[in-house]
């Protein structure tokens, strides 16, 4: 998990003007999901947005911070800085003013960089709840201090401790000689695998990776540096990878209240293949990612990214004529819904 680093790690701002043309997408499947163009720069951000949040937004939109847990934690950490620098204007109280006037521009900005994850939504809802409950008579500095400890506790309880618990529990599911398959990269799967490795269980890992982010590569590198035997497959080789595996571990973006897993696009196919090979699929998910929303498939609600993102720089050049004609389009979605979940925590 990456924390928001100091602002000088700011991504080089690419002058990208063409994002404005985005709504032209009369997209076949996900047309209803293209509601607003993605923001890739600080241009046009409201002046109320805190510098830490500005930096964070850029890190979101350039996928430097990705993965729903990492995004949620980094958002809370940024909000700590926001709260620290906050001063209640005269005539209002912190409980009334902070949420609606100061926090919401930050959230709007983050949302325009990349749609909020379910976990982030849950955390924001919790934070607003905490703020609203602050007694208006509390002095401002004390209230801010309280809020910051609350946020720290939230991260500790709901993420760090939960991860610890889950990885303790899930590591027990790994038996000597197992071949664990995982898709792309999930922080909790990674810590579980490392945990099991430290416990002295000998097992090997298959990482299935996919375009365009190649998150699995990072995971594979980390694991192999710890001495775990890792094999790496591209997504099209997934059928072969699943055939060799004995268990599948998946991370989650969210768990729907109808029992379905909402996770990185491509997860469903992996789970489906595992299911047809009768391999157990184990999903690791913190309860902060549970949502009361429901979904039957990936079309209902999803996050769409600009189509160019699935192409590498060279491919973008090659496929340029397609964009000119406008008849050709590529679809990127970030998440996938799969209907059967064997285990969740």
């Amino acid at each position, binding site marked *: 998990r990456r924390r928001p680093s100091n602002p000088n790690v700011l991504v080089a701002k690419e002058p990208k003007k063409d994002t404005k043309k985005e709504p032209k997408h009369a997209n076949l499947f996900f047309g209803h999901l293209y509601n607003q163009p993605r923001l890739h720069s600080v241009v046009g951000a409201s002046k109320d947005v805190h510098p830490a949040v500005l930096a964070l937004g850029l890190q979101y939109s350039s996928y430097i911070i990705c993965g729903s847990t990492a995004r949620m934690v980094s958002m809370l950490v940024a909000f700590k800085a926001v709260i620290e620098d906050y001063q209640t204007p005269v005539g209002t109280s912190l409980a009334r003013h902070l949420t609606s006037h100061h926090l919401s521009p930050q959230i709007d900005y983050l949302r325009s960089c990349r749609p909020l994850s379910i976990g982030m939504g849950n955390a924001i809802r919790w934070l607003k709840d905490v703020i609203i409950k602050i007694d208006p008579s509390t002095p401002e500095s004390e209230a801010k201090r309280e809020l910051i400890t609350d946020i720290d506790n939230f991260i500790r309880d709901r993420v760090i401790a939960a991860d610890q618990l889950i990885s303790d529990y899930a590591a027990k599911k790994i038996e000597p000689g197992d071949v664990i398959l995982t898709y792309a990269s999930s922080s909790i799967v990674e810590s579980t695998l490392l945990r099991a490795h430290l416990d002295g269980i000998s097992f090997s890992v298959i990482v299935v990776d996919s375009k365009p982010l190649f998150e699995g590569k990072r995971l594979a590198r980390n694991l192999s540096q710890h001495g775990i035997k890792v094999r790496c497959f591209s997504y099209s080789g997934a059928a072969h990878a699943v055939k060799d595996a004995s268990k599948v571990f998946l991370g989650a973006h969210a768990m729907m209240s109808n029992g379905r897993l909402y996770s990185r696009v491509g997860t469903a*196919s992996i789970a489906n293949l595992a299911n047809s090979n009768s391999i157990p699929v184990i999903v690791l998910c913190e309860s902060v990612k549970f949502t009361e929303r429901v979904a039957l498939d*990936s079309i209902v609600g999803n996050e769409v990214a600009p189509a160019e993102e699935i192409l590498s720089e060279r491919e973008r050049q090659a*496929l340029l004529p397609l964009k000119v004609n406008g008849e*050709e389009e590529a679809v990127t979605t970030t998440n996938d819904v799969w209907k059967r979940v064997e285990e969740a925590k």
Partner: protein
Amino acid sequence: MAEGTAIATPGLSSFLKSLKTTPVEPSVAYLISLLKRRQIRNSRQCAVATTALLLRVVGEFKGKDSAKLVERIRQVGRRLTSAQPREVVVGNIVRRVLGLVREVVEDHLDAETNATSDIGHNSQPHNDSLSRPTLSSTISTFSPLKHATAEPLDASTHQSETMSDSGELPKRPGLLTSHTSYVPSSSAPLVNSLFGLFSHPDTPSTSNTPTGHQSPDNKGMLTSLNLERLADFSNSKFDVKAEVMDGIRELQDELDQSDDLIAANALDHIHSNEIILTHTASTGVQKFLLTAARKRKFTVVHVETFPHDHTGTHSVLLTGKNRDHSGDSEEDSFKPLRAAGIQVVMIPDSHVFAIMSQVNKVILATHTVLANGGLVAASGARMIAAAAKAHQTPVVVVSGVYKLSPVYPFDIDELIEYGDPGSVVPYEDGGFVDLVDVENPLYDYVPADLVDLYITNLGGHAPSYLYRIVADHYRTEDINL
């Protein structure tokens, strides 16, 4: 090998060009090296190269002994298949040609021992009941032999033609009728010997199992009777070579036309406003979709098959031409689907499941179709088929009959080729490549139960029917090359 250095980009076209000038042996060696270096790859090119080479092999063959011809073809075939065992199509073509030789000889023997007019009678109904008259009629008029020679030859060209063109009417029923009708008039041992004529004692296991083609007692009389027959044969004026070469040319015609014949089925399967999902840069599938696009408006979702075929996919979508196979030029280029007014959406492999709920039909291209109804296709096909199964979306496989192999997949891993891992993780990433095993399977095996329909140049078939087409196209004696 010598030729390889002389020509700038070795490939199918350079091989076909050199075939005209080089003698047979170096050509065989050249094709072997091309196959080994993957300079000729993908089923179609392999099939074209193999037929062209076998045409030469038969053409150069000296002598009239058909048993030796069979042995010669078989020997070349063995060398080719061992050069690149995973290009199953090479073996298919060799088997088809072997079957052709056997058939020509058998028909001739039939004709020799029986009244010629009878044969003419017998084969006539076959012609009438051919279900696909378009191709067969052109080919039979094509053959110069038909008009130039006596009736028995006519019958045999016709026979080979049914073999190569129409699966519905196999030559085996023909054989059986001749069997039953002629047994009373001629001697039973003779008929038996005809059936066992070319069965090779070194491949006993396959030859006597499935079809009941051979009676168990024919092994005994094989030696004496056969030799006598063959001796007779080499004395006669009957030209096996010309017949077989004609047959091979028909096979070439079949290869040329198979995509178009498959495409002729397109309108039956693609309806207006459907959403069709396909993958890889297959010319067969593109032609299929284009044919439908002339009459109907639909949407194509194209999976890009990263990392080994995405450049091909991109260029097929853009220009209608597969950049990866630049070897074969003019005839393989066609209008891209977009130019035909079809909306094309390209998706990465990972998005298949998400979009499958909206898809009406999945059309898969294939590398090889196996006798049990399963297929070997570009990797990712298994995942697509499984996703389609989960959504109850029909999966249609488009394939020429030449890709249909008599091989049963007892060991699936044997059929899977692994490609350059550098395309999954580039070699620049040294630390990574050192630590992690990177694998890049090029093919997937898709079991028969994930496929709903096969469309070949003979029409549509259920996967469970394919064994029958295999039986019609290959002789049991040839299954083990």
